[in-house]
Every structure is written in C-alpha cells, then in structure tokens.
C-alpha cells in the first residue's frame, strides 16, 4: 500500500497558479507605469494578488482547488482540461462574432481576425505536435 501525500504544499507545482497571477499583476503594474496610469497598474496588481490569495485560501477548503494546485488528481486535471476547452471555445466564438460584426460595420475586422488566425494556427500546431508525441 502506498501512502501518497496529496498536500499541495509539498511541491513547487502548487505555487504555479498563484505565482502566475502575481506575475500577470506585475505586468499590469508595468503597463500602468509605462502608460502613465499608475492607478490602473496598482489596482491590477492588487487584484491579481487577491486572486492568488483567494486561490491559496480556497485550496485549504476545497478538494477541487487543492487538486488544481498540486495537479496530482487525474480526474481534476481532466476537469481542468475540459473547462479550459470550454473557455477557449467561448473566446473563439466571441472573436469570430466580433470579427463578423466589425466587417459588417465596414471596418477591417482588426484585431479580431488576427486573434482568430492565432487561435487557428495554435490549434494546428498543437495538433501536429501532439500527433507525434502520443
């Protein structure tokens, strides 16, 4: 019988999401400073730090969030992958709708056509990569 420890605190993996949120917040701060809107930067950083804190706190009370932290539960990893697919599909639909709306307004469709193209190219690249990996 193995006795695996499911504590997210044992691994650096458990800090990927909070650290990523903090780095995004620092990106907001830099953008705010460069763009001359310090308020936006400070608010953005504070918001992302709060998001990271809520995630860390929630992982102590929710098995699902804890699973998202330590990445060891295959079912939760699968839920995360499916939820990411749904989120990606929602963004893609929004981009395509906005592209059509922009073209119908007599505009070029920018930046939506670039975003749509990026999504399409990313999909094909991932498909080709995964085709040879699995």
């Amino acid at each position, binding site marked *: 019988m193995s006795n*695996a420890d499911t504590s997210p605190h044992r691994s650096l993996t458990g800090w990927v999401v909070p650290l990523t949120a903090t780095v995004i917040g620092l990106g907001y701060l830099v953008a705010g400073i460069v763009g001359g809107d310090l308020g936006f930067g400070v608010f953005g950083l504070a918001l992302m730090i709060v998001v990271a804190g809520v995630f860390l706190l929630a992982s102590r009370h929710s098995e699902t969030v804890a699973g998202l932290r330590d990445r060891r539960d*295959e079912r*939760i990893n699968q839920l995360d992958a499916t939820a990411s697919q749904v989120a990606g599909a929602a963004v893609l639909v929004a981009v395509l709708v906005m592209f059509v709306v922009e073209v119908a307004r007599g505009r070029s469709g920018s930046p939506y056509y670039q975003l749509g193209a990026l999504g399409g190219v990313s999909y094909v690249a991932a498909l080709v990569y995964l085709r040879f990996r699995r």
Partner: protein
Amino acid sequence: MKPLRAGRGLSQASLGSALGVSRQTINSIETGRYVPSLPLALRLARFFETTVEEVFDVEC
C-alpha cells in the same frame, strides 16, 4: 470497488489519500461518474491485492 473499500474499513478520503487522488475522485469512480485511467485502475487493483476485473464491474 465500494465493497472492497468498505470491507477494509476504509473511508473514501483515506483510500484517496493512499492513492494520491481526492475523496471526490474515489466517490466519482464508485458511483460510475468517472472512469479511471489504466494506471489508476492498476494502482487500485494492486492496493486491494486483486485484479482490475475484480475491482471494476466492466461491461464490454
């Protein structure tokens, strides 16, 4: 799987902890909402010192 777990006096949480998965995952497997991967199925079978066929009621 539930009879095997209950027969050993294990809770879903303790079985999940022993296998490195959550209590929810054990519950989902027992209720048929989640089909585990082959590695997890093998780990479960080894944990109960039996075969995969004995752990799961497979309908082919």
